[in-house]
């Protein structure tokens, strides 16, 4: 049972005005069948680029320099337009960040559902699909235009569209980022339930660590266009082995004690002009040493996950001590 998605040594560049920046710097990633993998990262980390590259839904100024992407054995990088179109139609389902801009403003929901399902589905079939996405009044929803729906309802319509042809893989780009906190949890539950019912795999792109810990089996942390740490969610989030993951968790407001001061990560995310010859996090890293500035750490297994850091063991050990200190 080979992995559903395999990304090897992927390098993607963006042609900005005059200057070229690297979106992905030889990134590696695999998504197993039936798994929910979360990709976490901040701006410029490459998380949206790698997520969208699976379906080759990249903006016009993005170029795939090298590397391979295979979905269910089909190579995405050198697929022609027709093969790519069929892959997206039959095997991939997408959920986007802003539901209001992801629907055609001039077309009623029913017709847009027909586009997603394909063929000539009956009204009842469409209603059933909407009901599965927990929209309790499907008839009214089908008759309305996108601007007549709330954010939460629109996102549920998009989820229904994504699973319409029971895809093998759902790709959700910040699915709840533009929704209100109160409905964020419910929408994620719906997405998770429908994924399970279809036996599909799912990739969630997010910057919200808490959301991830509740809804993803595994988590991949990205920094500087590479996956710097990947493993079971609990393992990675509770006992991070990469200094960036640990610093990210410490900087996030929410689980600090009243009056306790947050530990910000100084400096700003890197802008990659070319392939990295050293650890991209070195300038901001709390435990950086000369070796980090000279050679680039390669991914290696440490403490039941894969990490790109020369001193991962030390970080993993350190966090487990502070973990005990904190739980007493």
């Amino acid at each position, binding site marked *: 049972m080979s992995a559903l998605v395999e990304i090897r040594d992927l390098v993607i560049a963006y042609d900005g005005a005059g200057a070229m920046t690297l979106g992905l710097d030889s990134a590696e990633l695999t998504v197993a069948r039936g798994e929910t993998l979360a990709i976490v990262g*901040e701006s410029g980390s490459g998380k949206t680029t790698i997520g969208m590259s699976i379906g080759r839904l990249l903006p016009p100024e993005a170029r795939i320099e090298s590397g391979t992407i295979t979905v269910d054995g089909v190579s995405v990088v050198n697929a022609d337009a027709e093969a790519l179109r069929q892959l997206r139609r039959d095997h991939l389902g997408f959920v986007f960040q802003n539901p209001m801009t992801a629907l055609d403003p001039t077309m009623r929901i029913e017709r847009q559902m027909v586009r997603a399902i394909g063929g000539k589905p009956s009204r009842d079939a469409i209603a059933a699909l909407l009901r599965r996405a927990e929209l309790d009044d499907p008839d009214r929803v089908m008759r309305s235009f996108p601007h007549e729906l709330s954010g939460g309802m629109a996102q549920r319509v998009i989820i229904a569209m994504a699973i319409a042809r029971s895809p093998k893989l759902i790709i959700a780009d910040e699915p709840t980022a533009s929704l209100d*906190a109160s409905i964020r949890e419910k929408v994620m539950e719906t997405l998770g339930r429908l994924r399970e019912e279809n036996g599909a795999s799912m990739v969630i792109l997010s910057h919200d660590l808490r959301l991830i810990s509740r809804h993803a089996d595994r988590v991949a942390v990205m920094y500087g266009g590479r996956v710097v740490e990947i493993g079971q969610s609990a393992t990675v989030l509770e006992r991070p082995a990469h200094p960036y993951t640990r610093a990210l968790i410490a900087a996030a407001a929410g689980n600090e004690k009243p009056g306790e001061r947050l*530990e910000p990560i100084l400096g700003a995310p890197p802008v990659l002009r070319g392939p990295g010859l050293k650890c991209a996090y070195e300038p901001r890293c709390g435990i950086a040493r000369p070796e980090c500035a000279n050679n680039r750490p390669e991914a290696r297994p440490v403490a039941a996950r894969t990490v790109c850091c020369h001193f991962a063991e030390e970080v993993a050990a350190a966090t487990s001590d502070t973990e005990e200190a904190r739980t007493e």
Partner: protein
Amino acid sequence: MTETVVDLQHIVVTYRAGFLGGEAFDAVRKVNLSIRAGETLGLVGESGSGKTTLGRVCLGLLAPTQGVMSFGGAPFGTLRQRRGQLSVVLQHSEWALNPRLRCGVSVEEPLIILGVTAEERRRRVAAIFDSVGLGDGYVDRFPGQLSGGQRQRVSIARALVTEPRFIVFDEAVSALDVSVQAQVLNLIMDLQHKYGFGALFISHDLAATRYVSHRIAVMYRGEIVEDAPSERFYGTPDHPYSQMLMSSLA
């Protein structure tokens, strides 16, 4: 030092939709609020709760349909009369600064409006850049050359340069990455200790608000449903809606 900076009594704001006076919609309903010097009041609510509208009322940008907003114990008057006494830091850092002006010139503007001499302005601009951690050379850069976090620091410098008594932070950290957010939140708290201004911190993110505020008002559909010290929000707040907001933090 604990005189009330801003005081809102029975504030109501009604929006009338449509050209010929369509149906009225109350964005803010009967809100009473007061903010003392040196205190940060967090205003938390979801989209459409009316928190931004209330923020604009506190800034004198929007006259309330009913109710009285007093500033430093006296009627607000106009922004022109209150120049130098209040300021704002907004959400989108890419539009927070005029792209055509160097950062130093943007930060200097409130002082120019106050009529401060050129020599004094240069001194205070340099000082404020240091206190927001942007010394050596950032003064002469254009906003386009800065990262989101740095641009937000410059807009905080501009908000502080006249040492105002009241600052509104309207979703000031929401658009920033988590790691940079922590830097800006700490900066706001440190600067408040140093300058003692009163602050209104508007956000949909309870975690960030709880961290930076002394007191939190939870807003739901135009009303304040709970107003309590922020410690209460590390435990279990009274109002069910506040508890629901807390659940997203568990």
